[in-house]
């Protein structure tokens, strides 16, 4: 008899045995034994996903006051809450792998030492950008997450992805709804969205990354189920005709319809912008990371209120916000970095 995580449930003599287990559809759980390279690879993948949700949620938040109309404002609020919620779920799953604590992951993110998706290294300039992100970027995220969910060998990640994917679906539909309204709007609105599309089409496409290497361990270990280029092409075949159908043009000079394969061909892709974002050298990287770090400081009082000293020990209603924050303020100097 033991308590959770006190021992390992399974052990592997050789990597080949472990890989045969994965090939047979085996699921790995947090308290299972697993080869260290697998643990590190799964962790790095989930950490980057978690960071991306948090960075995306923060940008989304910036647009809440500027969102036109109460109905859309409420939808953007809900989307922001979803993205931050995804971050919470994923940081928990990542922390359970025992590589870094949540605090360490956040410190690395705010210190510019860890990665997040390329798209959040660019600045959203207009409302049209925000719509382009909700439509193109959330769709790209959805396509790649669906491919991970389909055959993911790490059980806790697979289960949490089911919920995240359902919510990304809401975001993509919200994005298309907003794009439709712009497409049906004035010439000036359509011009605004075309400019946004010119800015965001390529970053959104590059979210899938360059072609997968032939020996990509993420594919071998059933973390990803499809190659990057396959997922990217799925996005291109879906979104090129859709954008054109709404009366916008796709900003790819070499774009052509191949009559033989009956597919859209984008032509060569310049990967240099993606490489720059991976080194935190994107056009908006420094501001975004600085803003996320400042936000972490500004919200210290919330974490203090939610910590042991801040939370009330009596059992009266927890909805009494005034008391929760009053107590939190008193103990804020204690500084709970862990959140």
């Amino acid at each position: 008899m033991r308590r959770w995580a006190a021992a390992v449930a399974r052990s592997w003599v050789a990597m080949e045995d472990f890989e045969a287990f994965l090939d047979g559809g085996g699921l790995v759980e947090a308290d299972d034994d697993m080869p260290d390279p697998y643990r590190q690879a799964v962790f790095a993948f989930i950490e980057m996903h978690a960071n991306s949700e948090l960075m995306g949620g923060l940008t989304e938040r910036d647009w809440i006051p500027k969102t036109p109309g109460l109905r859309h404002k409420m939808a953007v609020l809900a989307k922001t809450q979803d993205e931050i919620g995804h971050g919470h779920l994923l940081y928990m799953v990542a922390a359970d792998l025992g590589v870094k604590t949540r605090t360490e992951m956040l410190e690395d993110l705010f210190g510019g030492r860890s990665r997040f998706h390329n798209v959040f290294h660019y600045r959203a300039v207009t409302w049209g950008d925000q719509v382009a992100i909700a439509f193109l970027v959330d769709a790209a995220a959805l396509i790649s997450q669906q491919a991970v969910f389909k055959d993911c060998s790490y059980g806790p990640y697979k289960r949490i992805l089911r919920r995240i994917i359902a919510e990304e679906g809401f975001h993509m539909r919200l994005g298309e709804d907003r794009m439709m309204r712009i497409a049906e709007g004035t010439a000036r609105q359509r011009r605004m969205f075309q400019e946004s599309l010119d800015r965001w089409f390529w970053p959104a496409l590059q979210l899938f990354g360059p072609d997968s290497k032939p020996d990509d361990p993420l594919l071998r270990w059933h973390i990803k189920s499809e190659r990057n280029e396959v997922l990217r092409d799925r996005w291109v075949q879906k979104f090129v005709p859709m954008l054109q159908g709404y009366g916008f043009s796709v900003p790819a000079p070499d774009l052509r319809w191949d009559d033989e394969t009956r597919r859209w061909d984008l032509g060569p892709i310049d990967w240099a912008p993606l490489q720059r974002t991976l080194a935190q050298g994107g056009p908006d990287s420094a501001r975004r990371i600085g803003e996320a770090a400042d936000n972490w400081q500004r919200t210290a009082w919330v974490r203090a209120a939610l910590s042991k000293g801040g939370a009330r020990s009596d059992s009266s209603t927890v909805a009494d916000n005034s008391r929760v924050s009053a107590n939190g303020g008193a103990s804020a100097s204690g500084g709970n970095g862990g959140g």
Partner: protein
Amino acid sequence: MDVYEVFVKKDGRDEFRHVGALEAATDELALVLAREGYVRRAEGDRLWVVRRDHVIVADDGFVAPNADKPHRHHDGAAVAARRRAAREAPE
């Protein structure tokens, strides 16, 4: 901070299902965070949180002997063979 495992159920349907985990300072805050993190769209009406360190886990091999108790199953092979023989016998 303690880690809590979260379980959700639709009232009148299904069973409680494990949906994930979270970190909270108290039992009450665990429920609040579970509501905000796991049932934002009322995916379930009933909610349990259980402190992870309260979960009792069986040791490796504790259940294993029960995988080798064929007498607890019955495959009905002898009866099936007799039926098949009866079906295939000439009239």
